[in-house]
């Protein structure tokens, strides 16, 4: 009895499914029909893993502006192989788990050709294995040493920004010769900060200096005075690098802690990235030094391509937005997005990239790159790319705070930043 009731039901379900399936196929018709005749008109889709929310939000905002400006420029000049670039932006929440999901989305849902743009090292480290599994070229703009250390994989490249190991190696001679030999380091307690801890301490010891104390601070911390008493009394130089939403509080409380009798201070501009140097409480920084990936303030001897780059992104001579002088940029890092997008273009053109089938050829084309001359495509300066370690090397700037502005005092050459290879990704299979 039950069978006779069941049968017509299942038959009608089956026919309903058939109709639905046919209707569904018909509905998608324009989508796949489009590919058959006009492949070259399809834009190149670059998945932009953006820190919209979470502790990296200020960087995300400026990485976005720089990337949009670079895309507008490249598209105005005819795109890549005649195809326009389309930036597909997804928020990763500055969270490693979400980062891996975002890559998945780029590869499987939004049909991106490559993924790009991640800064925070824990997100890169969390996402890169997924990029390897998806065989999706993953261009990070992160500074972390994790690319060149061999921790990641053949699909992950960092061609647009130098890594922490090379940066600190170039800073150590300046610190020990000009500021002092006894250093106390203050850094954020995650992968990026650990790169500073490990490589700067080695580099300063090679210069005859000594790290007296290492103070690790969680990047989500909001109150800092409690960490400063750990600074030994005989410290000659404070080396600080901090990230997260509370960087201004960090620097301000450091000033309040030392009062009028501060030691020499050398910081990575990360500690004040996106923060106005004229904010109240920062006066004590006058005369202190900062590493800058690229100068925030327009230097008097800046080249024309630097000015064009700054105009395209929309930063004024103080490194703030041309629309809001209070909205200070992340100038020392965001140039990496501009340069990376130009490298993706160069790599796609060199490999004759036509679609996701050519992803491997794209990675190989970028690996084959070496010299990158300074110019509008590389406004931060000339660079040398190491295809084996997937890492680029370039000049580093040391600036001093003078009259509330950062003035470049020393430029470390590319040679100062080189170190022996730790990995050869080109021997790994795709």
């Amino acid at each position: 009895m039950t069978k006779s009731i069941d049968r017509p039901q299942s038959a009608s379900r089956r026919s309903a499914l058939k109709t639905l399936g046919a209707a569904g196929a018909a509905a998608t018709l324009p989508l796949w029909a489009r590919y058959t005749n006009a492949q070259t008109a399809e834009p190149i889709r670059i998945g932009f893993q953006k820190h919209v929310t979470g502790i990296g939000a200020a960087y995300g905002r400026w990485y976005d502006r720089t990337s949009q400006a670079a895309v507008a420029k490249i598209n105005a000049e005819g795109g890549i192989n005649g195809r326009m670039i389309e930036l597909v932006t997804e928020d990763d929440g500055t969270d490693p788990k979400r980062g891996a999901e975002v890559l998945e989305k780029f590869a499987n849902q939004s049909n991106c050709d490559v993924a790009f743009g991640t800064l925070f090292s824990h997100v890169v480290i969390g996402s890169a294995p997924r990029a390897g599994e998806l065989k999706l070229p993953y261009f990070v703009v992160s500074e972390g040493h994790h690319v060149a250390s061999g921790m990641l994989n053949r699909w992950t490249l960092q061609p647009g920004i130098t890594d922490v190991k090379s940066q600190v190696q170039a800073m150590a001679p300046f610190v020990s010769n000009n500021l002092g030999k006894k250093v106390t380091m203050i850094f954020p307690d995650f992968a990026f900060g650990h790169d500073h801890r490990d490589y700067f301490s080695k580099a300063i010891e090679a210069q005859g200096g000594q790290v007296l104390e290492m103070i690790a601070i969680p990047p989500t911390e909001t109150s800092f005075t409690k960490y400063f008493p750990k600074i030994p009394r005989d410290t000659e130089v404070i080396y600080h690098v901090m990230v997260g939403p509370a960087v201004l509080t960090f620097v301000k409380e450091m000033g309040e802690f030392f009062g009028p009798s501060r030691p020499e201070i050398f910081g990575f501009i990360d500690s004040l990235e996106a923060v106005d140097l004229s904010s109240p409480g920062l006066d004590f920084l006058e005369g202190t030094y900062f590493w800058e990936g690229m100068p925030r303030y327009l230097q008097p001897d800046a080249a024309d391509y630097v000015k064009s780059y700054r105009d395209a992104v929309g930063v004024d001579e103080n490194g703030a937005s041309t629309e809001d002088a209070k909205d200070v940029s992340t100038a020392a890092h965001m140039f990496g997005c501009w340069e990376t997008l130009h490298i993706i273009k160069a790599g796609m053109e060199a490999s004759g990239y036509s679609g996701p089938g050519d992803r491997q050829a794209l990675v190989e084309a970028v690996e084959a790159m070496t010299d990158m001359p300074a110019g509008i495509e590389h406004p931060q300066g000339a660079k040398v790319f190491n295809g084996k370690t997937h890492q680029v090397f370039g000049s580093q700037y040391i600036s001093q705070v003078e009259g509330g502005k950062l003035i470049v005092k020393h430029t470390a050459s590319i040679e100062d930043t080189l170190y022996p290879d730790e990995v050869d990704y080109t021997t790994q299979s795709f």
Partner: protein
Amino acid sequence: MEFGPYLMLAMLEGAVLAAVLALMASGLSLTFGVMRVVNVAHGEFYMLGAVMAWFVAHLVGGGAAIAFIAAAVIAPLAVGAMAAAADMTILKRIDYDPERTIVATIGLLYVIQQVTLMTYGADARPVEPPFNSRIALPWFEWGEEGLALYYPWGLSTTSYKLFVIAAAAVLILAVRLFMTRTKAGLIMRATQLDSEMATAFGIPVERVYAAVFGIGAGLAALAGVLIVPVQQAHYLMGGDALLLSFIVVIIGGLGSMAGTIVAAILIGMSDGIISVFFSPTLAKILATLLVALVLVFRPQGLFGSRPR
């Protein structure tokens, strides 16, 4: 740094945290005491206080002091009004049912956080303190000439941090006087003791509830306004603050004002001292462990009374 000055610095830092925490947790304790509502969105009212302080200070201009005073008046009132409206539109509709209010306030938490993210953005923004000068503190040591004063490196606080401690103490005293000495306070206490009987005596319990929820949120917002010149307003700042407030309220005894204040001082000071001498994570571990011990051995909290 030597032990003596080090400890003094740790205690000063702890006192600032304790002051803010006491103010915020007394709001949480008040809503629980009178309404029996566990307000999970309390941390977001704290964050809203800080964010609104930034908006007000930004709009008012005219010097840091005027902007700060305007923020300290407007932000808590606005947040309190918003909370009272939430009470009337949400909590009242679900009859203050304990389980459903928890879920409702969790929803409120996300709504407030996301709306802040969408309007104010993900940046941390500073508010200028009305005054802020560094005060170097002396320390004494037995030298060759007997007791001598000297100024150790780093032993300092700022006038604003001292102001935060004093302001929180005054505000808590004011809340206490309001509850014990005014007619409105009497009505609230009557509602707390027995809301049915209070209704029978003609007390508009629903309006009392809305007012209490508003005052509780307003206290959290005030704490946010006080801390924002030291820290910075950020849309995620409510999370940690909520956790610490719950710890304080549970240790002190839900609904007990005196217990809340004692527990805030205990947790604030121990957090300051332990994080200076050991690590901030250890301070959190110990605070949470203390909560567990209190729940096991004295579930009503240090100062709470056993349920009748």
